């Protein structure tokens, strides 16, 4: 910058006056890039939703594949859900029993556990576990099918992959995840009974009748509705991430990973909205 030509003497002055604008312009461009990307993704998600809905309600449902997916999503997750459901009830009981004894309200234990399991803990924890197992499974499976051109191969053999792969998986998780959640609730109450029996002595029948005397229809319905949404979230996010996996094998891992992260996050958000809505009822 020492030997300035006459022109260069002018340009820096211009640059000084322009600099803020240039910076602003650069920042705007950077922001529009982010915005652009966001809008592209949003459009992609929107289009995917439309495609899925259209293919769900058009003719030619892949019933066999749907049953296969129900088996895979439902039956194969049973052991995991059994263990976590039971432990959930057990832990809840062991933790809250001393407090309830202090307050002299230990007779409320079965009811309290049942209500909190059915309303909140059962759905959310089971859904989060399913997001880990089922969501990542769908994401990885569809992702690897995409990367190894299996989805393309399906398309050239005149099979609509959205219908065959995506719709069946989403519907299967919409159906099976509420079932898994109810199953986890039930086992949770069993676990709670076992927990109550470590230090006390309650008969199973008495425990269950006490538990369900506190549960009302209004506890069940929102929980089931919420579970259906959790199922939809897990199925949809897994399919979306898998179906839109990039090229190359590392995108398979990425698809599985982001499927879990995104669906877990959405489950929490859906739960929050659901709680607000039921609160208004």
């Amino acid at each position, binding site marked *: 910058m020492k030997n300035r030509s006459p022109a260069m003497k002018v340009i820096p002055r211009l640059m000084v006056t322009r600099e803020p604008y240039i910076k602003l312009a650069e920042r705007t461009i950077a922001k529009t890039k982010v915005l652009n990307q966001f809008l592209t993704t949003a459009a992609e998600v929107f289009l995917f939703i439309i495609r899925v809905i259209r293919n769900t309600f058009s003719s030619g449902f892949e019933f066999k594949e749907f049953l296969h997916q129900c088996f895979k999503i439902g039956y194969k997750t049973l052991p995991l859900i059994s263990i976590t459901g039971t432990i959930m009830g057990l832990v809840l009981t062991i933790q809250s029993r001393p407090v309830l004894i202090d307050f002299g309200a230990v007779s409320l234990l079965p009811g309290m556990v049942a209500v909190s399991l059915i309303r909140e803990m059962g759905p959310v924890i089971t859904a989060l576990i399913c997001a880990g197992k089922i969501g990542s499974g769908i994401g990885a*499976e569809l992702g*690897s*099918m995409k990367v*190894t*051109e*299996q989805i*393309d*191969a*399906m*398309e*050239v*053999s*005149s*099979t*609509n992959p959205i219908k065959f792969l995506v719709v069946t998986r989403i519907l299967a998780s919409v159906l099976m995840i509420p079932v898994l959640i109810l199953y986890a609730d039930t086992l949770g109450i069993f676990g709670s009974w076992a927990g109550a029996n470590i230090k006390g002595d309650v008969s199973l029948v008495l425990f269950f009748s006490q538990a369900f005397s506190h549960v009302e229809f209004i506890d069940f319905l929102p929980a089931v509705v919420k579970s259906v949404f959790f199922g939809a979230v897990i199925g949809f996010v897994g399919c979306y991430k898998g179906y839109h996996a990039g090229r190359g094998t590392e995108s398979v891992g990425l698809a599985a990973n982001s499927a879990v992260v995104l669906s877990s996050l959405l489950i929490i958000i859906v739960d929050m909205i659901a709680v607000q809505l039921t609160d208004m009822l």
Partner: protein
Amino acid sequence: MIERQKEIVKAPGNPENGIETVIQITSLKKTFGNQEVLKNVSLELKDKENLVILGKSGSGKSVLIKCIVKLLDFDGGSIKVLQQDMSHLNMEELYTIRQKIGFLFQSGALYDSMTVRENLEFPLRRVKKGLTEKEIEDRVAEVLTNVGLKDVLNKMPSELSGGMKKRISLARTLMVNPMIMLYDEPTTGLDPVTSAEISLLINEVQARYKTSSIIITHDIKCARSTANRIIMLKDGEIFKNGKLEEFENSDDPFVKSFFV
């Protein structure tokens, strides 16, 4: 005018009536972002012809044949398959056309959650509904013998060798009797003996099923044994088009680098 009308009546898009040109591509353009992969590609595939497309890795060969079956949308030009313009088809028409095309993927693309048998049955069950189990089984057996394999039906794709995978995926595309075969690097990654066998197989398929084929490869041996005509791609355009001998005797350094 009258003559043209006669022509249309004579060849109403029915391949059995003897269409000369099975695939016609005119000034095809395809870009990914700002990367121009195909700039201006025009080519024709004649009936019962084996057309080999040569080109370096990344020259857009796979993209080209994916455009033909509309797995990828193209940005300019036109593609006509069996005289039907691929950009003006609805879903059903597209699926009908695709049933006449067999596509052998570079990676094989076997469904790895299904057994070999289910892989082979998949396209048949989808395309030709209402076949009896016996008919399906016979077809599977026939196609398997044609690709020279047996005792693999209950294996999973992950239990097969690379060459076997190629054969099974070839068998799978043959299940529905395609009129046009598109081979994406059928011999890449195989040992010379297996490559030669696959090349022979391509010729056999053409003789037995009377297919017209596009064979993408950079394996010059495969090109030599299968080609009726060769097209060479370079920088998104057609670099040379001709018979095998013209390529063998060419002085061009780029052509020579392939035909050593």
